[in-house]
């Protein structure tokens, strides 16, 4: 089994000459794997004959995903807990107001998982190939970036729909370089001599960290001069909107406009004429697009630029403002930037509030269904019962189905896959049954686990089929004890009858019962099939006989005989078992019962003689002879017993 491809975009060749020109593949349904084998086309006869001695190989080609890496497996297993608890809470119902805190919490749980995974991937696994690890870290970073943006825009929405404050925090946490450099600069003896002193300040202004800017400026040798004091005042006084600050959005706008008017006034009055650096800062504060635009390389990306621009031009921006702002920012950066990346498209789609596009892009860009599945699930619950988001329901189910299919194909993660299938409707149930039914039962432990999962989900047919497979396997290995245990669990009458026959035949051969304690304790399971009932009852007879309860033993034996439950090959055994009872000094078999036995013996006699006439095999003859010899004995005992019984019964009556 070769895992050949790690990258779907590349071509890989199977190094096997036999396959040349006649490759044929079949997709196996549950795993993401492909079976490749040589195939001879009917039409091309020449040259397609395989050399006789040559070995032909089957290749199993599996797609490799970073999901199978050890780090990602932690993510998979941790996220299933969050996923399940989210489904549980959502099922319990509650209004939108009750749902929101849960959704925000769960979204943050996912994010913290990704972050933890990112940190670990940096610390551990030095043996991994550098580029692999880097790529993995990149994927995680992107997922976190997207998820946190979506959390701000859709899930953790604030009253009034003002998004800018959260976006500023989002930008700060994803572009921490300015803060890192600031600490670095402040640690030195002369912060203002740091090579990128002003760049750090501009960067911090663009991220709205004005307190940090003031701290930086205070370390400048000219901090006591008028321009610096004036700037410090402006920075200190800039109003920030707070949702729960007791200030309405309209009132905030007034204050903010007043503040920006003040900035413009000071700019015009030439407060900063002596210091061009401060002039630039003031221009940013005034929302001068050209100045902000010229500093765009400090912002790294268009979305950072967009947030910075909005911060100083439209601080009460709402979701619907973002689409335009994003377009402007992209326009601005495109000249310098290369082509727009897939990540940009996802972020842009999010800002355009086009969830469908976001999911589509995520699915195409990120090489794993993990993120898309969980994201869609979150969005589905967020937009629950909103008409325009109806498509999310079906999409969610499909994606979960796809994700769990990937998991189910994995040798170890199939249990997690089944957990997801519980939450995607009827197709999920059907799929879960198939997954459980097809799991290779390598040991009893696996079988017990599959049975447990199937039983929890009330998949009776799966429980039955697993038990039947285990029973059949035990039977093949001649482990009759195990076979009957599984047979009883499978509730399959035909199969248990089959095993019961096997046990009886073995008893006929060597006079011993395997696993007699099990047979003694069959209980209600005995009613599963006639043969099993007979077997159980027959064991009961043995027990009674051993305990010396001859009277009851005899009644049971005769009832067994007259009920015709016994298979024909077992009749002689039953009659022979009756022999010691017939010879009891005190008659335990009544005359009525004796007639029954005589009837059976007669039937048996005719059956054997006709058989002997039909086939003159020597082997059968000897066994017939053995029986005929005993028959005489039995007949004698029967007549003796009959005589005794009649006398006894007659005596009692008189």
């Amino acid at each position: 089994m070769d895992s050949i491809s790690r990258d779907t975009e590349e071509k890989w060749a199977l190094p096997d000459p036999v396959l040349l020109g006649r490759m044929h593949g079949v997709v196996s349904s549950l795993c993401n794997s492909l079976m490749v084998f040589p195939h001879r086309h009917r039409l091309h006869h020449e040259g397609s004959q395989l050399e006789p001695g040559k070995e032909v190989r089957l290749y199993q080609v599996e797609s490799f995903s970073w999901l199978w890496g050890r780090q990602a497996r932690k993510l998979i297993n941790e996220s299933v807990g969050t996923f399940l608890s989210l489904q549980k809470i959502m099922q319990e119902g509650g209004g939108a107001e009750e749902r929101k805190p849960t959704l925000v919490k769960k979204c943050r749980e996912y994010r913290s998982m990704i972050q933890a995974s990112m940190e670990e991937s940096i610390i551990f696994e030095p043996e991994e190939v550098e580029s692999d690890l880097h790529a993995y870290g990149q994927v995680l970073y992107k997922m976190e970036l997207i998820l946190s943006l979506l959390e701000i825009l859709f899930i953790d929405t604030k009253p009034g729909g003002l998004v800018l404050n959260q976006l500023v925090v989002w930008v700060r946490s994803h572009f921490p370089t300015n803060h890192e450099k600031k600490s670095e600069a402040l640690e030195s003896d002369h912060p203002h001599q740091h090579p990128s002193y002003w760049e750090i300040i501009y960067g911090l202004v663009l991220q709205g960290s004005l307190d940090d800017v003031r701290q930086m400026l205070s370390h400048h040798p000219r901090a006591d001069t008028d321009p610096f004091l004036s700037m410090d005042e402006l920075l200190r006084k800039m109003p920030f909107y707070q949702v729960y600050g007791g200030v309405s959005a309209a009132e905030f706008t007034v204050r903010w406009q007043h503040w920006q008017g003040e900035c413009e006034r000071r700019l015009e009055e030439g407060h900063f004429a002596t210091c061009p650096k401060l002039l630039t800062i003031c221009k940013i504060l005034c929302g001068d697009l050209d100045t902000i635009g010229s500093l765009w390389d400090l912002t790294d990306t268009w979305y950072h630029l967009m947030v910075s621009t909005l911060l100083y031009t439209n601080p009460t921006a709402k979701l619907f403002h973002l689409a335009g702002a994003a377009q402007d920012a992209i326009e601005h950066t495109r000249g310098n930037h290369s082509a727009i990346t897939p990540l940009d498209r996802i972020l842009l789609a999010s800002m355009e509030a086009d969830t469908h596009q976001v999911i589509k892009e995520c699915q195409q860009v990120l090489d794993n269904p993990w993120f898309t599945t969980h994201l869609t699930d979150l969005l589905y619950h967020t937009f629950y019962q909103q008409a325009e988001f109806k498509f999310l329901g079906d999409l969610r189910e499909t994606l979960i189905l796809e994700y769990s299919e990937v998991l189910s194909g994995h040798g170890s993660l199939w249990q997690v896959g089944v957990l997801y299938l519980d939450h995607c409707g009827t197709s999920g149930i059907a799929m879960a049954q198939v997954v459980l039914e097809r799991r290779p039962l390598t040991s009893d432990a696996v079988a017990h686990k599959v049975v447990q999962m199937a039983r929890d989900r009330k998949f009776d047919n799966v429980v039955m089929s697993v038990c039947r497979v285990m029973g059949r396997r035990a039977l093949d290995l001649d482990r009759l004890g195990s076979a009957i245990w599984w047979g009883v669990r499978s509730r399959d009458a035909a199969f248990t009858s089959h095993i019961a026959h096997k046990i009886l035949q073995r008893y006929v051969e060597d006079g011993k019962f395997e696993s007699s304690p099990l047979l003694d304790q069959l209980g209600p399971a005995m009613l599963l099939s006639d043969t099993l009932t007979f077997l159980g009852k027959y064991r009961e007879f043995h027990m009674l006989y051993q305990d010396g309860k001859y009277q009851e033993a005899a009644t049971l034996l005769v009832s067994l005989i007259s009920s015709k439950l016994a298979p024909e090959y077992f009749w002689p055994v039953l009659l022979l078992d009756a022999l010691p009872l017939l010879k009891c000094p005190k008659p335990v078999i009544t005359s009525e019962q004796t007639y029954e036995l005589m009837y059976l013996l007669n039937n048996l006699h005719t059956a054997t003689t006709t058989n002997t006439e039909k086939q003159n095999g020597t082997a059968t003859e000897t066994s017939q002879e053995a029986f005929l010899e005993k028959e005489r004995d039995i007949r004698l005992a029967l007549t003796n017993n009959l005589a005794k019984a009649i006398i006894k019964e007659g005596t009692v009556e008189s």
Partner: protein
Amino acid sequence: MTGGRVSSKKYVGSKVNIVRWRPAASHYTHADTFISGTWGDGENEVCVWRVPECDDDPNLQHNLKHQGNVNDIQYVSRDTFATASSTGSVHLYQHNVGGHLEHKTSWKQIHSFRTSRSPCTGVTSNGDQIASVGEDGKLIIINPTQERPLRIMESVGGCSVYAAVYVRANEILTGSLQGYLRLWDIRAAQPAKTILHSIDQVGVYDLAVHPTQQHLVAAGGDDGALAIWDLRHTTQPFTIIAAHNGPMSEVRFHPGAPDHLFTGGLDGQLLHWDASTSATPTHTHITPYTPSRQHQGGSVTVWVSSAVGSGCVDTTAIIPPSPLPINSLDIDGTTLIAASDNEAIYTVRQVMLF
């Protein structure tokens, strides 16, 4: 009881089938190292973990590849332990000075069916011998210093045996799929001395012997019920208490405070059974064999008191139920470790007042 309980969950990236504390260096300290064995992966392994003093997650010290699933682990001495493999082999490992593991020796495929190999399901040890059981129904006695098994004891019917424990130096109790408990005397020529069985063919998945009262055995079954057996009255279990919603995977008495018992199940629950508060120690029930003088001190057990007999035991869930089976648990001092199919190792500190 739950006041100081601190539990943490560490995802390890593979399904863990078994966890075992390494015995502490002396009686006065608690164990700080445990080993785990994985199952279900292409490559399985045994790992050594160290639990830090603070509330941090356990740290991986060393890992070694293991052929087949690790079905059971049992320490033979403080430094050596035996593992039961799904390939039917028993492996012996040793802790080295540097905290590393070393594979010492194996008894390859001693468990087998007629035509195929049979998983080895359990190992137990009395300190100098190792006994292993498998799905082939065999009980095999191994001397760690010899290449060949000392003795192979077969049971009729070819029924899978899942659990084995030494109840005395020379007596082993086994529990099987079909629900028998068998007491084997390894000195005697007879195959099995006693056969007991539970009703309804409830499979016995795990057995645990009371640390001080060795005639007391707890058995965890297929139906999720805990059965307490007094081996001197073998006609029926002393009590059966239902708790789990699925088969029980492991039963452990607390080694130092045997009034407490812990069970894990395939239903994802991890339960703490506390008989100390609900029952008073008694020795009236079992007087004939032990002189009452011996009951002074700590050797009295609450498990055969009438309160336990009527099912009155405090049962608490230690962790929120996991969606996937809890495969194994072990307890030493106040720290409990457990492993699940969710690829997580749970560490629960201050699990009880001790």
